[in-house]
């Protein structure tokens, strides 16, 4: 598996359950040693637990990684200390990430009273606290309401515009389609395809022309509901999902 995440881009890591998305993220941020190969940040290979280069990475784990009994501010203060931050810089970054994620007013509330969406946003804030150049997000919107999901997307788009390199794992096609500049489809620990949405769409046999827009897709779905098939439109299924199923197959994946 080999791929690159450049500054100012969001790369989606897309794969079925058990494909190796979380393991890949764990290897990238040094939690799991690779069987072979290396991870380079800014062209420099990571070396060991205490490598200062780890500070250039920001991880947003799949589950909200927060101390529920502490306030948002106390959580961030602790995570900042682990990143060797202190004093005015830490205070200023706490303000910045809470503002970015819309939690500034709730900074002194204990996390246990937060909604699921607020916890996800605070989870993102913790990953951003030390202003990393590379942000690793492991399915950060699972179980999140549409408003919070949208807020997270907007935050990520703002971060991309600010030049951050973002690796975003998901198995939600619409998220990948909306957010990602490039998509890496992985399966069984290997990269099976990589490219932009259009480049991946071209991989579909006999259908490399163009994608349907939302209105056309809705129309195709309406016709399909009335029993009228539109050749080549496949019942309105988004093209990325078709590519995904084409590359990874239709068999159920029951890996935990």
């Amino acid at each position: 598996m080999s791929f690159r995440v450049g500054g100012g881009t969001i790369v989606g890591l897309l794969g079925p359950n058990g494909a190796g998305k979380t393991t890949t993220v764990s290897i990238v941020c040094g939690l799991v040693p690779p069987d072979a190969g290396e991870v380079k940040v800014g062209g420099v290979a990571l070396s060991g637990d205490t490598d200062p280069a780890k500070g250039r990475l920001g991880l947003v784990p799949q589950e909200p990684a927060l101390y529920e009994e502490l306030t948002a501010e106390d959580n961030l203060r602790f995570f900042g200390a682990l990143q060797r931050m202190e004093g005015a810089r830490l205070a200023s970054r706490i303000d910045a990430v809470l503002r970015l994620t819309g939690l500034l007013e709730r900074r002194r509330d204990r996390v246990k009273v937060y909604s699921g969406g607020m916890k996800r946003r605070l989870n993102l804030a913790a990953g951003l606290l030390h202003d990393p150049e590379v942000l690793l997000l492991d399915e950060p919107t699972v179980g999140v309401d549409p408003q919070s999901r949208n807020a997270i997307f907007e935050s990520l788009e703002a971060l991309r515009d600010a030049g951050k390199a973002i690796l975003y794992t998901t198995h939600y096609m619409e998220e990948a389609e909306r957010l990602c500049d490039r998509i890496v489809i992985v399966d069984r620990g290997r990269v099976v395809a990589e490219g932009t949405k259009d480049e991946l769409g071209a991989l579909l046999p006999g259908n490399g022309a163009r994608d349907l827009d939302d209105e056309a897709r809705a129309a195709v779905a309406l016709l399909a509901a009335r029993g009228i098939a539109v050749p080549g439109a496949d019942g309105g299924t988004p093209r990325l999902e078709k590519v995904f199923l084409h590359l990874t197959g239709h068999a159920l994946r029951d890996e935990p």
Partner: protein
Amino acid sequence: MKQALAIVVHELKLFLSDRRSVVVGIVTPILLATFFGFLFSGAGRQDAAKIPVLVADADDSAVSRAVVAGLAADALLSVSPAAAEDARQAVRRGKAAAGVVLPKGFGEGAVQAFFGAAAASEIVLLVDPSRATEAGLVRGLLAEKVFREASREAFGGATGTKVLEESLGVLEADPSPPTPERQALKDLLRDVTRWQGAAKGGTAGGGAAGGLGTAVPFTLKEEPVTARQGVTYNSYAHSFAGMAIQFLLFVAIDFGIALLLERQGGLWKRLRSAPLSRSALLLGKTAAGALVGLVSVAATFAFGIVVLGIRIEGSVPGFVLLLLASALMASSFGLLLAALGRTPGATRGLAILAVLLLVMLGGGWVPAFVFPAWLQKVTLVLPTRWAIDGLDAVTWRGAGLAAGALPAVAVLLGYTVLFLLVARLRFRWTDR
């Protein structure tokens, strides 16, 4: 009804699905019940009742030697000779349950007192106040031996003959008018003298030891040996030591379980993704666990001191060091649990069993001296035994830093290092 039955079957399936918890739930009560039954049954532990007693015989007379021999021959006692001050120190340190001090002139005085010819000799019985039951047994056996040997000497020994002759001489030389009581005593002494003569000639029948006498031949001064004179024994000191250590270990279980839960969630990933060494992470966790534990034991003892009058009669720095070392040991134990445990649920069950055994065998529930002798030796490998004995030593026993605290502190710190090393080696840092 079928729904209720389905719920019963479902709950049983859930219960049985965690085999470790099932085993712990069954094994724990069996182990504890068996241990206490064994402890108090007396079966198969003949050495258990041998009470360690030190005897200081300053008299070295026939009577005193016979008393010492009588005590030594008793199946309930383990008697060793010692100087009076050594006996006192041994009792103070908990090395002996009691000390017996037979004073100079004890033998002759006992025989004289037997006939009321002199004040009774005073025997000093040094007792460990935490071992009141054993002290009571020693007191009874000592009285029996002294009474028997004093009477044996009075009615058959050289001292008895000498005392009889002297007493008769004193009575007969008395110029005051005779009284019925004095005449009766003279008659008794003459009869005893004749009986002694017949006994020496082999015609007295039942032997010399008849248990006859006219007065108790000794007085007993019982001295509870605490830190120093005037300090009374506070039984709360031991119970607080035991319970403080037990709940320190329970705090450690919570600490270990919290670490396991942290590993299950994303927090562990967040911690590990920071530029932070493994040692710093484990040491930080251990130090935090130790501080929490320290607060727990400090609060426990603070209550005991303020409300129940526990006093640190020995070394205060030693006491503080013991609490600190115990907290470090417990915290590293919690880390060990986190390193060896798989799931929080199963680990909690096994850890509770381990703590209960550690505290029980460490003398936290009942003092270790009630254990069989072999078990007393075996349990010296447990850190809890050292912690509890050490706290006993520096509180009511009044032991100093070097003798009372430092050996236990060294053992506890040794266990801390051992637990940390094993935890460091066995810790699973990655979960693929």
